[in-house]
């Protein structure tokens, strides 16, 4: 089933570019976590710099798309949805950048026993973002498929929540670390987990926007 956006090639191209950029940030993110944990400091700092540059580029793209949306008279009842969608995708990029900067600034000491858990949590967050990017791409081509695709995002977000809870439980129950260190470790688990939450927010927006578009067809 064709999408109403297909007629506006410029808009579709701008959004495709924004989704590509988000996917790239999302590819760097789990690699950066691995580099941090493996003490590959230089590579980690390069990852942070790349994410930082992409985030700025994303802001420019987002603003350009928003201006286009409102100045080129795109179907008025749909532009609010597109705007909300772009802004919620931008939140994913922001959250990834913020989390990586937190690692760079605060340099938490992560005990060897927890490193795999942090890697797995990051991987699940990245998978949730990847799944919602697939749904966002499809939304602009075939909104009928969105409902099916976002179920994967919800499942991955739940998985990330469970992994984060299990990790925090281990930190506070099993380890013999001082309380200040436990809180520091919890803080990073919390922020990585937030990335999957942001993916879920995008999925929620996509669900509504897709229903509206399908109804309008």
């Amino acid at each position, binding site marked *: 089933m064709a999408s109403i956006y297909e007629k506006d090639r410029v808009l579709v191209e701008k959004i495709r570019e924004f989704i590509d950029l988000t996917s790239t940030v999302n590819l760097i993110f789990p690699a950066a976590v691995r580099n941090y944990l493996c003490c590959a400091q230089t590579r980690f700092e390069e990852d942070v710099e790349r994410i930082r540059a992409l985030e700025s580029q994303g802001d420019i793209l987002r603003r350009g798309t928003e201006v286009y949306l409102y100045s080129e008279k795109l179907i008025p009842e749909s532009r609010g949805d597109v705007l909300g969608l772009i802004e919620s995708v931008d939140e994913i990029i922001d959250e990834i950048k913020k989390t990586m900067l937190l690692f760079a600034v605060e340099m938490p000491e992560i005990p060897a026993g927890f490193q795999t858990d942090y890697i797995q949590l990051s991987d699940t967050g990245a998978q949730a973002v990847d799944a919602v990017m697939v749904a966002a791409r499809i939304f602009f081509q075939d909104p009928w498929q969105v409902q099916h695709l976002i179920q994967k995002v919800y499942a991955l977000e739940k998985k990330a929540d469970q992994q984060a*809870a299990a990790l*925090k*439980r281990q930190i*506070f*129950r099993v380890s013999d670390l*001082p*309380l*200040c260190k*436990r*809180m520091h470790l*919890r803080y990073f688990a919390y922020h990585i987990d937030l990335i999957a939450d942001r993916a879920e927010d995008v999925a*929620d927006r996509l*669900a*509504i926007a897709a*229903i*509206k578009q399908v*109804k309008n067809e």
Partner: protein
Amino acid sequence: MKAMFARAKLLEQKSAEFLNVTLEACRELLTGIGNYLDGKSAQFEQNFQNISVLENRGDALRREIENQLYTETLIPESRGDVLALLENIDGITNQAKQILMELSVEVPVIPEQFKADYLILTEKSIKAVEEVIASTQAFLNEPLLIEHSLNKVYHWEHEADRHSEMLKRQVFRNPELELSHKFHLRYFALHIELLADKAEDVADRLSIYTIKRSI
């Protein structure tokens, strides 16, 4: 002003159930915190399980209501407002679950002299939630009653703020506690107080929507 879902009985039922889920989650939170403070671990973990089930139910109901609002083109002029309202109320249930989860995971050591204050803070925050749920019910069914309950939300949010501040002051002025322990105790006071802040956010939205509906 007429009821919001006057022509959609099923939606009205689902909304009522959704609001009840939030109230039940708050009751579970209060009992859970009481059990935690009394050292009743098994009962506390049961409260945590119960609130997790309620939170999932709330999520499912919210999505069902949102889908129905848009697929059946119900109340097109206010569905964006109702959508935002539901998402904000869902945020209250999530916060209630989050508090019990954090207690379950982090097992903070709460000194005897602060236990009563944590319980009072929880009660005050929950009162703010109960009033905002009453306001939402009024908004959906009896718009004329809304102002009365909204005023109570602001009162209880203010009370929770004051109690939380007093508790945190006592914690940080206690010379026997380590700084990390003080941070940990402050973190839990802050999260319980956030419940009332979230109720206030919903109240702010309701105030605006009520004005919009009256015009």
